[in-house]
């Protein structure tokens, strides 16, 4: 693919309750492999995807959270978390698996406006 576009992945759902977080991550990896400009944003319950210490043995579902740590290796480095969403869930940056940039809702809206393609699952 010759064109390079700005892809934003909007993650708004908690992990495990539904498969969206996992299957979204699969798209992110492929999009990065196609050398596109990838941003991931986490807002609402999506911030829970990045919570440290996930232990899924008791629900017999694979823990896919280590993949977030591996994103850097795929040159996916733009990770944004919405401040208000994090605060409403009693979370701080220290609770998250990876370093992120924290944005306010308005800043996130502005960032969204700059994209070529916005994908939401």
């Amino acid at each position, binding site marked *: 693919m010759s064109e390079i576009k700005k892809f934003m992945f909007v993650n708004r759902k908690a992990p495990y309750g539904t498969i969206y977080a996992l299957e979204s991550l699969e798209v992110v990896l492929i999009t990065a492999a196609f050398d596109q400009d990838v941003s991931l944003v986490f807002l609402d319950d999506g911030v829970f995807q990045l919570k440290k210490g996930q232990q899924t043995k008791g629900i017999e579902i694979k823990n896919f959270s280590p993949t977030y740590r591996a994103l850097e290796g795929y040159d996916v480095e733009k990770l944004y978390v919405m401040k208000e969403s994090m605060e409403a869930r009693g979370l701080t940056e220290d609770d998250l698996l990876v370093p992120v940039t924290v944005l306010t*809702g308005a800043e*996130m809206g502005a960032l969204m406006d700059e994209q070529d393609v916005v994908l939401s699952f």
Partner: protein
Amino acid sequence: MLHIVNKSPLENSSLESCLNVATSGDVLLIEDAVYAATTGNGFEPKLLAAMGKVKVYVLQPDLDARGMGDRLVAGVTSVDYSGFVDLTTTNNTCQSWL
């Protein structure tokens, strides 16, 4: 950009999230989100407040299906599927608040 919302605001927080993030542009309510644009629903005050910064549209076929065609909040613009397509072309991108 165009923000598309498809969930009832009385059951799900996605419209509220959308309105917190969208600082400008168009918001289109489809499927169960159309209830947000009906008079007397609990979310109406929040929708009216947001109408200062975004323009709100509602998909008329979804409103009609739900028997709500005659109680559209004033200031909300009704579109059919053809108008929905137009909104995706006049805006550069669209985000679905699923």
